[in-house]
């Protein structure tokens, strides 16, 4: 970690990712239909944007502005799902509206604030990227470790399975699997993505295990009577972890990109929930509003910056694990 911080690219990547994670974590405080704090009708509410009290249901920062004694607004005054019908904004032209001082990054066709949707979409994208890779690394370590250690027939069979997974265009697999599951929530998506992304990790682990297996310390462990499971878990996998970490980091980036593609195909996270892929899909659907550039540009930039940081982090991890050897 320290070595990463000293690496110039790694430092910037870590900072950028920290910023993104904090944005995702505090999405409710940054952009919400309810304010940070408000005093209305003699009661004071703290953080109604997070707690969403029933008494304030149906209210928004716009409607509260006139009735409240005082109010602390969230930095972005809108929630991700607040449509024109809710905000009741009165403008001469129908949305999408271009960026201005009310909507910093403009609104979509329904009058929803793009900035608010971006901030909340960060949650889905980062979660999908991270969780997918955790699952993929888990499965990859297991299968690659077994294939490399056991050798023989097990290795041949598992290698065939690996080849099948690599040859088969995975988008088809994902489309089929997700249309079978038919629920457009986060978990099935993450599990399906994870189950398709493990091949690279497995291939790597298998190769590493094969090269480590004949080293003295493994022979010593075996001579001392350690079980195969213990040798794999305690001796082989920790030593193979460096390259795996590199692949995993890059994998987070590609998982985020894949999520956007799946959202576009209509099998990502269900529509009203904001995700970056869904925002881009919205932009594509709104192409008939020529000149609504803000719908495509800002989500695209958010995705590109995040994936860029992840990839830069991957490069930095590669550099630092190379110099460690």
């Amino acid at each position, binding site marked *: 970690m320290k070595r990463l911080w000293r690496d110039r690219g790694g430092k910037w990547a870590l900072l950028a990712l920290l910023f993104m994670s904090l944005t995702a974590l505090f999405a409710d405080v940054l952009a919400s239909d309810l304010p940070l704090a408000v005093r209305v009708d003699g009661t004071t509410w703290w953080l109604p944007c997070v707690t969403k009290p029933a008494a304030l249901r149906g209210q928004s920062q716009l409607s509260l502005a006139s009735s409240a004694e005082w109010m602390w607004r969230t930095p972005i005054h809108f929630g991700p799902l607040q449509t024109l019908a809710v905000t009741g904004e009165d403008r001469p032209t129908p949305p999408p509206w271009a960026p201005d001082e009310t909507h910093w990054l403009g609104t979509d066709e329904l009058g929803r604030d793009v900035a608010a949707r971006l901030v909340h979409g960060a949650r889905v994208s980062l979660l999908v990227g991270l969780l997918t890779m955790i699952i993929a690394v888990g499965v990859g370590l297991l299968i690659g470790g077994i294939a490399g250690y056991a050798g023989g027939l097990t290795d041949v069979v598992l290698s*065939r399975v690996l080849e099948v997974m690599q040859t*088969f265009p995975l988008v088809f697999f994902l489309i089929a699997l997700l249309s079978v599951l038919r629920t457009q929530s986060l978990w099935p998506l993450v599990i399906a993505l994870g189950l398709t992304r493990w091949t690279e990790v497995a291939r790597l682990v298998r190769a590493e295990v094969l090269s480590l297996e004949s080293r003295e310390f493994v022979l010593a462990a075996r001579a001392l009577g350690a079980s195969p499971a213990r040798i794999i878990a305690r001796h082989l996998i920790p030593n193979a972890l460096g390259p795996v970490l590199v692949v995993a980091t890059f994998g987070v980036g590609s998982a985020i990109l894949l999520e956007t593609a799946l959202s576009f195909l209509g099998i990502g996270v269900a529509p009203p929930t904001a995700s970056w892929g869904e925002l881009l899909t919205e932009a594509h659907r709104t192409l008939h509003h020529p000149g609504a550039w803000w719908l495509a540009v800002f989500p695209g930039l958010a995705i590109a910056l995040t994936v860029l940081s992840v990839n830069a982090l991957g490069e930095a991890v590669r550099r630092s694990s190379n110099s460690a050897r």
Partner: protein
Amino acid sequence: MRRYVLRRLLLMIPTFLGITLLTFVIAQLAPGDPFQLDLEVVGPGQAVIDLQRTSKGLDAPLPLQFGRWLSRVVRFDFGRSFIDQRPVTEKLGEAAPRTALVAGLALVLGFGLAVPLGVLLATRARRWWARVLSVLLVAAWSVPTFWIAVILLMLFAGPRYFDWFPVQGLAEGGFVLPVICLTWPTLVVATRQVRSALEDALAQDYVKAARARGIPERRVVWRHALRNSLLPVVTMLGLHLPHLVGGSVVIERIFGIPGMGLLAFDAIGTRDYPTVMGVATVMALVTMLSMLLVDLAYGFIDPRIRLERSA
């Protein structure tokens, strides 16, 4: 060499079986079958549904269904589509050339441009424009293809900015934008590969030796170093094909190209099993063949491998 080819071909059989089995299982996992989808609305009664199922062989035990299907696949007969009753082979025949055109152009353009670009970046690494270019390359790697498509459509296919290309379809130059979108990731990945392989090769002793003998730098790079660094690039070409096919699903949907990707996507949605399995089989065959070709190409590029394998 011949023995090696034979061995490779034999090893393809279990992989092929695995892929067809995977497709079959996925198709079976889908809840319900096409007749439920269709007939529930009309309500013709269970008897009609059962009759339909029997006539399509959907009442047979699963292993038997798979066996029947496999025996027909070997004869390139994928049956008829459940949806419009046309032979799947015919539908594939219509869709495949469109995908082949777009993906093929992208592959050729991507790798064709990647070689000179990679060489430039490896040999002129210290120039300011080379640095800018390599930063741009990393940035370009992080951009979703699908975003590029939306931006391109907005700029070049709408009435607002430049109305040069049609929004949908391949006619009237409509293939230009999809080809650009698919070339993009190919070019980025391939350029990185060419550059790093060439950088490794240029650090080798034989390059030093060639320079010492007074061979012109241009010749050293293009003849000596590049030839040896093409091996990993060719490997990547084979591995890149599934990605290209996957990418074409999204691209075909955005640009409304009725190719293999769109065919598969629609077929999965309507549970048209024969079509789904037809597309997947053809795709898998193409990928496997290209991997085989890549492996064989090694032998031609690198004589060492040829010797090793025939031994």
